[in-house]
């Protein structure tokens, strides 16, 4: 067997590299690199969300762009009202728009969580390829709804003139905004690691591996999966909220099926079900896009080839190649 790096050590290296590179870049004035690292952190966060459903729960959701986009639109819509001083609602009481990140994050997570509850409750009655198609269908419905709703920009999307604020920080400073994203990513990873080893994680993994057995011992697969799907959607929704503030723009493209595909690509390239898989996958995606995208507009061909090789020859993704097979309790 090839020599492998212990997975916790590899994870630590990835986490530290992800923060060290932008800090170094910021010190040497390479602002663009900081922005790239922020995208990696945000994409990784979206992937951490999907990984909970896809990796731990075996739920191949092809509709996570719905949660990413809803998180983004929550931020965009609240910012839109804050910018125009038009309250979001006047009855039963006045709800003003806001750009305070803690509030917009909470709204984004609530919106994507509720959407995940509804979509999950219907989709989880199916499995396999039907589940993939139904999640895709729901995401497409939301996508077309966003396109056809002129109040919030329709096809053109919504601009956020000033990035949201966070108490005590200057979010306009690229490094500080990166650090916000990085800390949230780390928190999501810690949460994932805990959930996975908890009773809930045990049940979720059992339901993924052998539904009949889980039922025979008295575990109801549907409820376990639904809760996992909701947590998954909320984390991806938070990533969407950060993405909106990074781009200072939201548009239906955040809800497009290609976005669902990209989030899935992060997870698969990095390693399905591996804790830091989405981090590795998002980093590779962004680096490919930046390096090869500068050389040819067909850079996605290379990404596709990499994905193909990983699916065929390295099921554990990049983490699996470096750290070997997963260890279990």
């Amino acid at each position, binding site marked *: 067997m090839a020599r492998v790096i212990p997975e916790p050590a590899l994870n630590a290296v990835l986490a530290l590299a992800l923060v060290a590179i932008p800090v170094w870049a910021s010190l040497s004035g390479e602002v663009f690199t900081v922005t790239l690292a922020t995208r990696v952190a945000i994409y990784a966060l979206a992937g951490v969300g999907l990984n909970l459903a896809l990796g731990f729960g075996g739920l191949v959701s092809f509709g996570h762009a719905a949660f990413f986009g809803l998180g983004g639109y929550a931020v965009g819509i609240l910012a839109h009202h804050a910018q125009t001083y038009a309250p979001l609602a006047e009855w039963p009481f006045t709800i003003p728009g806001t750009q305070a990140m803690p509030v917009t994050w909470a709204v984004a997570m609530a919106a994507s969580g509720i959407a995940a509850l509804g979509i999950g409750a219907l989709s989880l009655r199916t499995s396999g390829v039907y589940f993939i198609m139904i999640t895709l269908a729901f995401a497409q419905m939301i996508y077309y709804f966003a396109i056809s709703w002129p109040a919030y920009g329709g096809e053109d999307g919504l601009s956020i003139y000033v990035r949201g604020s966070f108490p005590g920080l200057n979010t306009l400073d690229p490094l500080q905004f990166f650090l916000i994203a990085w800390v949230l990513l780390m928190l999501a990873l810690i949460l994932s690691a805990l959930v996975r080893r908890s009773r809930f994680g045990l049940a979720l993994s059992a339901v993924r591996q052998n539904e009949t057995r889980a*039922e025979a011992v008295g575990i109801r697969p549907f409820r376990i999966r639904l809760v996992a799907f909701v947590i998954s959607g909320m984390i991806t929704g938070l990533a969407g909220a950060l993405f909106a503030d990074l781009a200072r723009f939201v548009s239906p493209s955040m809800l497009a099926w290609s976005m669902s595909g990209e989030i899935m690509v992060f997870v698969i390239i990095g390693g399905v079900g591996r804790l830091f898989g989405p981090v590795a996958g998002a980093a590779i995606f962004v680096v490919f896009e930046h390096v090869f995208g500068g050389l040819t507009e067909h850079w996605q061909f290379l990404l596709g080839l990499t994905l193909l090789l990983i699916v065929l020859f390295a099921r554990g993704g990049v983490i699996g190649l470096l750290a070997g097979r997963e260890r279990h309790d």
Partner: protein
Amino acid sequence: MTEPVLAVERLARSFGALKATDDVSLDLRAGEIHALIGPNGAGKSTLIKLVSGALAPDAGRVRFLGRDVSGLDVVERSRMGLGRTFQVSSLIPEFSALANVLLAIQARSGSSFRFFRPAMSERDRVERARGFLAEVGLSERAGVMTAELSHGERRLLEVAVALALEPKALLLDEPMAGMGPEGSRQLTRFLDGLRVRAPILLVEHDMDAVFALADRVSVLVYGRVIATGTVEEIRRDPEVREAYLGEHGP
């Protein structure tokens, strides 16, 4: 007479023209092992599925602990204390033996909706899980991944998982299947002592085990129970000898 723990009343289930279960009635009383035998294709597995709730009957009822459970599904019946093992080992392959038992304990006594504390750090539960593994003689294999256990060990683990549910009745679907003679003898001894904890409805092909263990035997042929009685009565029954035992010798 007290009410049986488990009672099947005039159960029927067809698949197309095939009557897999045809007007079957039988019961399981406290403290007994009731063996269900019959040639391949007699409908034993279908009957187990009907009793466990995996399959809905066309007609008839299942009563468990004095309650009509016909409308309950697998999960609800399991939570009431109906434990089962599968004919083909059905465990969680990427879990250790210990985690498989722990999962059953978790499902039986408490919620699966705990998100932060590692399941393996809940000492009292883990100790109980080790206790069930020790009962079936798998203590030393607790940390081994289930997919890497031998066939016989997996059969034993099935039993340990069923016990961890603290069952009020057990459905054992060919627990000896594929076990070597030594393994079969060991498991036979173990099941012998188990009946006082929970009565057992035992589907088994191993006639040595059935005749050694069963208080009563029911013979299923083409979906119908053709005879129910003690081991001696069944051995003597001419219809049974013709339909079934004749092929094997008594």
